[in-house]
Structure formats: C-alpha cells, structure tokens
C-alpha cells in the first residue's frame, strides 16, 4: 500500500467530509430517525408522541394486509428480476452474434437506457393506458378484458411488465460487455469440444459471465424492491384502492396518506433488516460460487 503524506493531519478528514456528510444526512440520520419513531405512536396532527415499545411492530406483523403485501412484493421482485435478467441475456447473446451492422443494433438496443427513468416509466404506463394504450388495445383484441387499476391481477401484470421493460437496457449493456470479454479462443475451443451451441452456452459462456450476472442480480433485486416505487405510483395514479402494492410503496402509503408515522417507520425498519439480511446472504452464499478469473 502506498502511504500518502498530508501536510495537515486534518486534511484527509476534510477531503472525506463531503461524502460523509451526504451519507450522514441522507442515509444515517433518516435511518436512525426511522428506528426512533418506530417505537412511538405519533399524533397524526403532530401534537406529540407516546412511547409504545414494540407495539408498532406487533401491529404491522399481525395485520393480514401486511403479509399479503409481503407476498406480492416477493412474487413481484422475483418476477421482475428473473424476466429482466433473462430477456436482457437473450438479447445480449443474440446481439453478440450479429456481425452485419453490429454497432447499429447495439446502439438501438441501448437507446432506451438514455431515457430518464421517470419518462420511461410514464411511457410504459401510457402503453397500458385504459383509453389510449396500444398494449391495452392488444389485450382486448386478444379477448383479455384488461382493466388496470380495477382488476388486481391485471394491475400487477402491467406493473411487472413495465418494471421489466425499463430494466432490460441496463442489464443488456452489462451482459453484452460481459459476453464480449469472454475470450474468443475459449469459445472456439468449446466449439471443437462440444457440438451443441446451447450446451456450450450453459457450460462455458454462462459460467464465465457469472461475475456480471451476480452483480446484476444484486442490482436488479434492489431495483425491483425499491426503484419500482415510481412505476407503481404511476400505474396506480396515486389511488391504490384494492390494488397490489409493494412493501416500499406501503411504507409511503401508511406514513404519508394514512399519517401513521410510527407504523410506517416500523415497516421501514423491517425492510432495513430484510435488506441487510439479503445482502449478507447474497455475498456469503452466491459469491462463493462465482468464478473471478
């Protein structure tokens, strides 16, 4: 390790200060505040708070609606992660094989990534719009009476499709660059050793993509859990009613619509613990099986 000498002992801390203050103000402080508030019953009109111990947590866990939301979140996140990764991988494999006009193909496929996320989400929502959405028209033409915002399943379907659609380009870029870093000669050696190109893909190419896939898996789970908030809000148009929501959206609903700050904080603390556990599991269990060569 190279040791850097600073002219003043405080200098390194000063250099770290901007980053640390951002982490402190936007991450640590709100987290600490959420933990504190989760033990209190807050007056909806802000006139005071009462310490209630673990009551907020007990209420959250015993509520049937909470477990319903948790199940939906699990299914939604799994589906979004699975489909956005697998479709992106399929596209990347196909794009990798294109020889004629390769750069045009790739640019077109990556284009979507250049669109700001809220705009992309809004576009997705418009595609499913009850009145002007072409996808909605298509579903009706196929005999599926799609009613987004009314039918629980239809709404969940639209949310999932939009969330997957918006995440594919970024996954595509990573997979494509991963595929291009798989040495050509290794693929050729495999071509001499194995006739089936599908089998070659699963036994040679895919394992060599593992570092990329692992990174994307974490990014995508995080995306499905947290960053889909905007899409859900757009699909529901702020009126959840009886429609499916994820745990993160429920934190917002209970806290800012229901004015139950204590209960909402308890939910975010549970989410925090969940994410922490998930991260540990991911790095302990999966990384061991990933080959960094």
């Amino acid at each position: 390790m190279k040791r850097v000498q600073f002219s003043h002992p405080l200098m390194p801390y000063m250099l770290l200060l901007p980053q640390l203050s951002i982490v402190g103000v936007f991450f640590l402080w709100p987290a600490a505040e959420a933990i504190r508030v989760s033990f209190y019953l807050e007056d909806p009109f802000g006139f005071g708070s009462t310490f209630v111990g673990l009551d907020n947590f007990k209420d959250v866990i015993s509520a049937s609606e909470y477990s319903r939301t948790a199940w939906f979140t699990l299914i939604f996140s799994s589906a979004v992660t699975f489909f956005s990764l697998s479709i992106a991988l399929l596209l990347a494999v196909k794009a990798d094989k294109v020889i004629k006009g390769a750069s045009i193909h790739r640019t077109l496929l990556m284009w979507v990534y250049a669109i700001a996320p809220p705009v992309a989400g809004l576009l997705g929502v418009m595609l499913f719009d009850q009145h002007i959405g072409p996808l909605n028209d298509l579903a009706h033409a196929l005999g599926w009476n799609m009613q987004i915002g009314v039918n629980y399943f239809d709404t969940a379907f639209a949310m999932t499709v939009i969330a997957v659609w918006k995440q594919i380009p970024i996954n595509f870029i990573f997979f494509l660059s991963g595929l291009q870093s798989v040495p050509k000669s290794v693929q050729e050696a495999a071509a001499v050793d194995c006739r089936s190109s599908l089998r070659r893909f699963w036994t040679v190419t895919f394992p060599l993509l593992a570092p990329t896939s692992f990174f994307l898996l974490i990014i995508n789970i995080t995306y499905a859990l947290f960053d889909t908030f905007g899409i859900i809000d757009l699909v529901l148009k702020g009126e959840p009613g009886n429609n499916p929501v994820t745990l993160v959206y429920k934190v917002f609903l209970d806290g800012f619509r229901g004015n139950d700050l204590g209960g909402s904080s308890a939910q975010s603390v549970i989410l925090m613990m969940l994410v922490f556990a998930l991260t540990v599991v991911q790095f302990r269990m999966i990384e061991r099986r990933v080959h960094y060569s």
Partner: protein
Amino acid sequence: MAGIQLNTLRKIYAGNVEAVKGISIDIQDGEFIVLVGPSGCGKSTLLRMVAGLETITEGELFIGDRLVNNVEPADRDIAMVFQNYALYPHMSVYNNLAYGLKNRRIPKNEIESRVRKAAEILEIGEFLNRKPRQLSGGQRQRVAMGRAIVRQPAAFLFDEPLSNLDAKLRVQMRMEIKKLQKGLGTTSLYVTHDQLEAMTLADRLVVLNGGVVEQIGSPINVYEKPASAFVATFIGSPAMNLLPLTKSGGEWKLDNGATVDVMLNTDLSDLILGVRPEDLLIEELSEKSGSDLHTALTVQVVEPVGAESYVHGTIGEGSKDVVVRAPGKLHFEPGQVLKVTAKPEKLHTFDTKTGKRIEIEGPLETA
C-alpha cells in the same frame, strides 16, 4: 487416424480480401506438416478452415475419406491447441480434459482412464484438481496438449502453440511435441512463424506467402533447394544473401564487377544470386579449387554468437549487406577486407521478377 486432403482451398473475406488463394496439400496419415510463413500469409486462416472455425469459400477439404466442408468443428474428429491455450478458466484441469469427452457421451470410467493416462504422459497428474489460473505458462500448455490427446482424434491442429512461452521452455516443449506426435502417430498440422520451430518439427514443410504455397517439401529439401527467393530468405538464419546478378559480355557479374562462372539456361539478363552465409568461405581458410565466386568483402560489423561469428560486410559501393558465417575463434576488424568464395553447388539463382528458382546447370566450361 486419417490423412487430410486440401483441394484448392480458398478463403475470401467480406470486402473481397482473399486470404487463402487456392491451396492444395495432401497430408498423409501420421504425417507432421508445418505451415510456416510471415504474419498475414494465411497460415492461421488455413488451419482454422481445417478446424471448421472459418468457412471455406471454395475448394474441398477431406479428413480421411469424408468431405467436411460443412461439418461442425466438433464433428470433424480433430483436436486443436490454441496459441493462448484457451483453457476453460472455471473448470479444473481434470474437467478441462474431460469436457470434450463428456460431450461425446463417453462412459465415465473411460473418461477417467483417458484423462489419467494423458496426465501421466504430460506429467500434469498432480494438477488435476487445480484451476488453470493456478498453473504456470508451461503447465497450461501441457493441459492444452492434454485436452487434445484425450480426444484421440484423427488429427491434431496446432495454432502457434509455443509462441507464448519463454525461449527455454519453447525449445523443451518443441521436443516434447515431436516425441509425443511420433509416439501417438497422429496426423498433425502445425502453424508457426518461427522457421526454426518449423524446421525441427516438420516431416514436411509448407512455406506460405501471401495466401499461396511457395514450396512444399522436407525441411532439408526446402533448405537446400528453395523454390523461390522468398523461401530462400525465410528459411534459415541468418537469412540467405541475395545479390543482383547481371549478364554483360556473355559473363554473369555481380554489381562490383566480380564474375560468377556459372552456366544458366535462361534468356534473362537480370537474376538474383543467392548464397547462404555458411556457404560463403573466407578464401585464406579454404581450398581454392572449384570455386565459382570470388569477391572482396569489406567487414562492417561482427556478431560473435560463440561457436561462430556472423560477419556483416559489403562487396562494393552501395551493395547489400552480405553475411558470412565464420568460425567463432577467428577475429575480424571492421574495415578489414576479406576474400570470400563459394562453391558452385552452393549457389542459387532466382528470377528477379517472379522470384522463382532457376537451376544452375553447372560451372562454366572454360576452354
């Protein structure tokens, strides 16, 4: 095992770039053929066409009796050793060797015994559980060889397999490849740009240049009777000296006016005279009789390499660099003028335009 037949193979890339211009080679069963040539001569492309990694634009390729133009690489019954080894980084050495066998549904105990046997031959038995990244360059090279051996294919294809190794290891592996190939008797096609590697390994050499075959023959044959000026300079180190030879007044003369007493059956009046550095003799050290070339050489640089010295000099104003291979114990000074001679049977002549060899019919009969 089988022979390989290349019938006027051509490769034309997009944009009408012709990399291989109709090459025919008939490789016998068990033969070790080395394709040698400068970079860009099409030797790797040709090998990859045999492997099935490049499509064949025109011509026919037979492995054994089977036309394999449109057969997948995995079905051609060949095994290939790549320049950068191309081992599967996520598999153990054992699985690297076994992969091609597993995909061919060979029984497990058969795989096991083949891998163990190959590992024993190549002395990599103790590394079977390691990953390629835990091995040295030489060990990886052995694993790559092992991957080819276990397949027991009709032919081995080598694509510059030694060029990533250091000089010492390269010499050692070169000998091992030769021993191994002779032991197994498997037909082999080997690509290299290193003429020394080519000479030492080949049963027959194929010298390629610009997508065409310049010469096919045994290493000694190619060395002693190069078919063209290109082959003459490419095979042998230091390279053969080439000097312009012109006919004036019924005599063949070098640029410096020295006469070369040879009889040539040609209408041309401009030729290239070729003479290998070891065939140029310093006159004071050799018998004088029977020499057809006498000229003075002004020493410029001397490269002593131990047993011998390469004496670089010129034979006149503006002449090309001429190299003489002299015994290492002799001492030369820059500026010193030496008399050099060459025997008639050691001279080569080539057409200036086409570069093709023109046989010397004998020394000039002087009445």
